[in-house]
């Protein structure tokens, strides 16, 4: 029994670290700007497929991945320009729905280019099973966890140490004041969308390495990211990361001990309870206003 | 018996005490004023009286009923109406519809009446519309009744808010800076309106005002707040020369 629990925990941690990375990217727009970015998942889906195409065309691995992430960021910029900026003065709903529109557009384009079937992600490096006591782990899972951690770390550094990162914190608190302080708000928002897309694609690639790629994974990712952010606390990078891990672990435990078919339903149910009982999440400090 | 009474009303926001142990009472058909520098807790007092916030300590009584902690819709239904410092009209509705919203609490029609358009519902609606139009006439806005509320001039919007509040048939009317931003002429009109309201409609009125001329000319009794606490109360003449009041205003940072 113990062994089973450990195995589930490790699985949970592995998938959780992927969720964490996707959530960190998602939290950029959601946490900073208060907008539910419905396009997030489809952006990284598109970027992941791009990565796949590049890799299959024998572009060197690091370049392919970097390029794909940059493309993801670029698409994020497009979303910002098309779906967010023209309707900025209206609050959440309008940009939220126009983001859905952009998501649909990219999803359809992806469908036309790559078709609707599920595709495995090309193997980037050999993996093997490692024995840890009684439990067997796939080295891929360890690598992914490590990558997710380091990428998030890099991300945190950017947010806390660079000028742009600090500007983002300021803008997320108060736009008029930030403007008064000389911060280029438009540029900062663009950065937020770019970073969100960039890191989202990174997460998406890791996701596809573990599972596979299919067009619908985008929406799925958006939902997971949103749940992770709610649990961890909206607006908090730490929160998004920890929320992702917790989500992964909870899913694994629910799947292993209760039911794997209803896993997502139970997860949503728990999230709804969290929303009512602990709206701030674990690390959150920014409670959205009551209607 | 007092119309309304507060006992040691207190409101804390986090570490800040916005209203500090205020004892306050208003008699029937009385006009009372509340003055005080910015941030002295006047509007917050209105907010806890009308149920927008729950007071941290203290009690409120409407006649002999304890209304402490009642939600704001219940306070309104019980007979306390208010206007807001920053006008809160329903911009996408017409002027007459705004006032008709004020009639909401006094309408008798139920959901079934509405869905089946029973004769009693139709009568209710017609009565509500008539009453709204009468009130618009009273405040001088009848000719604008089909206009969108958002399109009215500032002074007209204030009068509309007044009409809407009166439409609820309150026993007590709370006015939060009703003449803010008005020129002396408009302010004078409002002043007269307030007197007429009290005389013909028999309601008590409490008003918050920064315009001292309006306040002295309208209120029969004034309480002065500073930093959430009551520092003085009395007839206008006494308040005008009260040392503590003068200090409070002089000490206010502009």
């Amino acid at each position, binding site marked *: 029994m113990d062994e089973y629990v450990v195995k589930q925990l490790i699985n949970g941690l592995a998938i959780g670290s992927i969720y964490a990375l996707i959530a960190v990217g998602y939290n950029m727009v959601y946490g900073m700007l208060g907008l539910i970015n419905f396009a997030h998942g489809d952006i990284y889906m598109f970027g992941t497929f791009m990565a796949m195409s590049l890799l299959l065309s024998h572009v060197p691995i690091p370049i392919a991945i970097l390029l794909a992430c940059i493309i993801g960021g670029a698409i994020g910029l497009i979303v910002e320009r098309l779906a967010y900026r023209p309707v900025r003065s209206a609050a959440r709903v*309008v940009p939220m729905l126009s983001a859905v529109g952009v998501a649909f557009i990219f999803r359809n384009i992806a*469908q036309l280019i790559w078709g609707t079937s599920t595709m495995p992600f090309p193997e980037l490096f050999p993996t093997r099973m490692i024995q840890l006591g009684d439990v067997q782990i796939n080295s891929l899972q360890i690598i992914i966890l490590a990558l997710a951690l380091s990428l998030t770390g890099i991300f945190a550094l950017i947010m806390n140490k660079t000028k742009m990162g600090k500007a983002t914190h300021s803008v997320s608190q108060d736009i008029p004041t930030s403007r008064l302080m000389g911060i280029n708000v438009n540029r900062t928002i663009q950065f937020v969308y770019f970073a969100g897309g960039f890191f989202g694609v990174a997460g998406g690639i890791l996701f596809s390495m573990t599972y596979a790629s299919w067009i619908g994974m985008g929406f799925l990712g958006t939902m997971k990211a949103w749940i992770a952010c709610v649990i961890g606390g909206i607006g908090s990078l730490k929160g998004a990361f920890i929320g992702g891990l917790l989500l992964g672990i909870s899913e694994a435990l629910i799947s292993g001990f209760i039911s794997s078919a209803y896993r997502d339903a139970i997860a949503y149910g728990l999230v709804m309870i969290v929303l009512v009982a602990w709206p701030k999440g674990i690390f959150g400090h920014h409670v959205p206003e009551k209607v | 018996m007092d119309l309304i009474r507060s006992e040691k009303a207190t409101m804390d926001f986090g570490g800040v005490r916005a209203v500090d142990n205020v004892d306050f009472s208003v008699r029937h058909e009385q006009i009372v004023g509340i003055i005080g520098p910015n*941030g002295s807790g006047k509007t917050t007092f209105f907010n806890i009286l009308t149920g927008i916030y729950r007071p941290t300590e203290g009690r409120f009584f409407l006649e002999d009923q304890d209304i402490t902690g009642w939600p704001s*819709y219940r306070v309104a239904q019980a007979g306390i109406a208010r206007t*807001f410092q920053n006008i809160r*009209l329903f911009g996408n509705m017409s002027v007459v519809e705004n006032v008709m919203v004020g009639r909401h609490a006094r309408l008798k029609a139920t959901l079934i009446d509405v869905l089946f358009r029973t004769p009693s519902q139709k009568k209710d609606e017609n009565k509500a519309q008539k009453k709204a139009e009468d009130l618009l006439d009273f405040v001088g806005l009848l000719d604008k009744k089909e206009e*969108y509320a958002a399109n009215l001039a500032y002074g007209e919007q204030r009068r509309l808010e007044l009409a809407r509040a009166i439409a609820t048939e309150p026993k007590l009317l709370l006015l939060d800076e009703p003449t803010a931003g008005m020129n002396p002429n408009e302010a004078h009109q409002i002043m007269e309106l307030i007197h007429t309201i009290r005389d013909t409609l028999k309601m008590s009125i409490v008003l918050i005002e920064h315009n001292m001329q309006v306040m002295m000319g309208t209120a029969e009794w004034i309480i002065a707040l500073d930093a959430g606490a009551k520092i003085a109360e009395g007839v206008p003449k006494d308040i005008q020369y009260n040392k503590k009041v003068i200090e409070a205003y002089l000490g206010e940072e502009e």
Partner: protein
Amino acid sequence: MANLNKLKISNDPKSIFKNWRFWLAIIGTAIMISVPEIVPNDYIFRIIISVIIDIPLALSQNLITGFTGMLSLGQAAFYGIGAYTSSLLMMRLGVPWPLALLLSGLLACIFGILLSFPCLRVGSDYLTLMTIGFGQIFYIVVLNWMDLTRGPMGLPGVPPPQIGSIVFKSPSSIYFLYLSITGLCYLFTHRLTHSHVGRALIAIRDNETAASAMGINTAYYKVMIFAFGSFWAGISGSMLAHFLNFVGPMTFTLNESLLHMQMAILGGLGSLPGSILGAAILVSLPQLFKPIYEYQLLLNGLLMVILLIWRPQGIMGKSAVAKKVGQKSFLKQLFTRRDEPLGNTEATIEDESSNVGGKSNGSN
């Protein structure tokens, strides 16, 4: 909305003939009655019936989002609850159709009420997420509860509507039957919105604090409109099931809820005839232009983006307010951010407490 009695017969009985609305009603009714004769083929007829089935969904969405300002994206769940309930009641328990129809609406209504309670306690963003969550839960449960719903295989063989010994099998009969049901929905919705209830809803949307201060029990109205909306969504579901003679989970996804939202927005939030138009356009276009099936999402997405940027008030939404004082359009005013107050109606109550305790963070 202020013109309560547009069709009122004035002192001169003959003047009704000058009223364009009267003629529109006459012509409209004539067209509706003769549809079975006019329609060129069965395919188009079925599209018309599909539109009729979706109209209550668009109206519900309009009521909840357009009139009351609550961004619910969970309508598809109530649609589905209605569809499955109606089918299962008839097929497994032999319940007669009229009762099955009513019960499916009622069950959807009950779930709507249940969902609305927690939604009352959370902010506007979270409300959307709660409704999405509910929709997802419904979908997953229906997909996996094999014993009840047969999961992804769905329930084939759902019987057509039947009153007594009359079976409504032909498109014509279903057309008139469903037209009556949808017509009833529209009638009730119209009466609701053109009454003090409608005013209360709009008041809640435009300025909840002020609405409360006028004696409106906002919690009651929010629950009530959720109940009303989900009831009719359930009825729509029942209509769908007995028309297609099949129920399957794929119909009741978030995309479906988004579609209902689009119908309400396209037609114009706050406009009831607009919802009919929105439903008509968004249901019939994909069906009429089959070759574009592959590009469906793309076109839908483009439509959404363009609509929201260029004409957020939809086809029939009011823009009159916007034109006059340079204020933003109906929809933008509806959804304005708090840090950029619009006119006078958007200031928060914290502003009025005169900066007590420093800058407010928006939480009460």
